[in-house]
């Protein structure tokens, strides 16, 4: 009886500890080395420079360029895109903007963050941010929910005085993501992540030929299978607790074992 009680208490404690711990949101691996970080940006979806999450990608460009990067985002992540633009010493009022597109080139909304910002005369830099919605493993084909796959970031000036066109600027982009965990785990999954050109790529792999692909992006630890989530832990703990509670309830109706008036020899 005592063993059961101890075991029950331990399990309960484990449940209390594991549940929130698993659900706790931890930022994705940050401050990784920037040794291999790209120093150039693409100028179209086709030529977008691939960036890993946590990498600080830099690029120099001209005011008026459309700069493109792409990054992978997996299910249950909530990516945040940050961009900094260092402006030339003299310039007029300019408005800069980041747009994020998913693997189907559908524009994705920002939940919050200043994705568009106006820099007044003499401002030396602009900082932009966009917090995306949580990436889901599956959604209806008619929805435009973010799905695992390639995401594109486009950084550009959307409003400027004509004389500022073509001035040199240096830009910096960084993508981090918050792990939302099982709270965002949905049923179903995509057969392949939304990576453009993935059908062509797999055909080419069968042929054994190598050629340029639209996007060869993949997270560090591969795409999640969509099988695991902390919902398994919660449900299992719930099952155990229910069983213990059942035993407890049963025990209540039986009293504390043998009646005390019974002689030990009986």
């Amino acid at each position, binding site marked *: 009886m005592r063993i059961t009680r101890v075991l029950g208490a331990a399990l309960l404690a484990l449940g209390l500890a594991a549940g929130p711990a698993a659900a706790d949101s931890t930022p994705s691996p940050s401050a990784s080395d920037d040794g291999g970080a790209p120093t150039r940006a693409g100028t179209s979806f086709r030529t977008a420079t691939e960036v890993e999450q946590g990498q600080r990608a830099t690029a120099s460009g*001209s005011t008026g360029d459309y700069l493109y990067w792409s990054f992978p985002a997996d299910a249950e992540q909530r990516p945040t895109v940050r961009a900094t633009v260092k402006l030339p010493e003299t310039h007029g009022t300019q408005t800069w903007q980041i747009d994020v597109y998913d693997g189907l080139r*559908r524009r994705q909304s920002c939940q919050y963050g200043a994705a568009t910002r106006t820099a007044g005369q003499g401002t030396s830099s602009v900082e932009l941010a966009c917090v995306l919605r949580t990436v889901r493993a599956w959604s209806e084909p008619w929805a*435009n929910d973010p799905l695992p796959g390639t995401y594109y970031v486009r950084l550009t000036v959307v409003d400027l005085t004509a004389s500022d066109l073509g001035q040199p600027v240096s830009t910096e982009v960084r993508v981090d993501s918050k792990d939302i965990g099982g709270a965002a785990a949905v049923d179903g*999954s995509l057969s392949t992540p939304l990576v453009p050109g993935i059908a062509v790529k797999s055909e080419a792999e069968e042929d054994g030929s190598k050629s340029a692909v639209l996007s060869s992006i993949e997270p560090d630890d591969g795409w999640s299978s969509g099988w695991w*989530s902390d919902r398994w832990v919660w449900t299992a703990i719930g099952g155990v607790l*229910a069983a213990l509670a059942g*035993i*407890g309830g049963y025990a*209540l*109706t039986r009293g504390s074992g043998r009646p005390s008036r019974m002689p030990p020899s009986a």
Partner: protein
Amino acid sequence: MIRRQRLAAGVCALLAALTAGLAFPAGAAADETEQAAPKVELVLDVSGSMRTRDIDGGTRMAAAKQAFNEVLDATPEEVELGIRTLGANYHGDDRRTGCKDTAQLYPVGPLDRTDAKTAVATLSPTGWTPIGPALLKAANDLNGGDGARRIVLISDGEDTCQPLDPCEVAREIAAKGIGLTIDTLGLVPDAKTRDQLSCIADATGGTYTSVRHKEELSDRVGDLVDRAADPVVTPVATEGAAECAKAPALKSGLYTDREEFGQPRWYKVDLDPGQELRASVSVADDRAVHPDYGVLLRAVTLHGREIVRGEAAGDGRTDVISTGLRYPRPRSDDEDATAETVCLQVTNSFSAAAGVKTSPGLPLELTVDVVDGPSHAADVAAFGLGRGWWLLGALVLAGFIAGLLWGWLSRWRVAVWRTN
């Protein structure tokens, strides 16, 4: 008999050698990246105004020469580089002759750095600024091959050979060639030069940079040449039809087309049961358009029923407007189920002022991916599993009540058994 065997063996050996010979180069080629050599042509303005001393104390020409030397040193091996000049040879005042003055200084091909540098050193600022004709010739120089093609135009003044508008020329070139972009650099540009050069860049999806310092020039040109060396997918040209029945059948891949203002374009894709169609489309505005625009991509059955659509709208300055859709076709129990033809319709709602040319149409880029379809989701939550304190509470309560009931039930049963 023996002789015949020998003959047979000889023939076999010959065949084997031939097959090996045929097969091996193909295998070897497959090992390397099958990327056609990217071609870049630098087009340099050598007109009289290049003599102006306003770049870091030196002439514009000196800055350009220095930049070219640095870029030639740093050009990646695989890039085929050529140099064309405009206004380098004709001193006179005859406009007609001056406007034909463009010459290939170094042909597009594998680069011999010494030769190229020697050729650059001979240049001295001379004549007119025939940008339009030079671009046409440069596009000719880059003809052939499947690789990326890029023209880098460096100029310090606007085109002096009207009425041929270089901006129109650039658009025509982009419409003819696939994957050809023109990047422009203005040396200490005035407003007119800037407008013209940025118009040329916009017309081909290129970039425009204004240059005031030497390092800026060499950095930028070097960057553009390096960029040409990056492997990119070359799209396949296709031509969408006005209705689905006549539309071209597309497989997985990347396609380009041209679409005029308000013109619908139809394509079709065959989809087996259990496969998923993913399509995305981008329409670029390569000319001055009104600031409100949109694009619509619809997947429609042969009978005209809309399956799914992707739509996007925007306002303000942009290079492209794009949208996409996916359509997973459910698995079929019927083994004879045939491929379904899905029609894709692309329309855009760009509009332009009356004076803007409508043809060639706006550049359209279409990606099609046909992949295996996903399993159907039966529940909102993953595998129908639960999560959170309410779930735990509910389960504990249910377990407790079940335990109580079970206990009472068994007590009651024992009591009934005792009395009997």
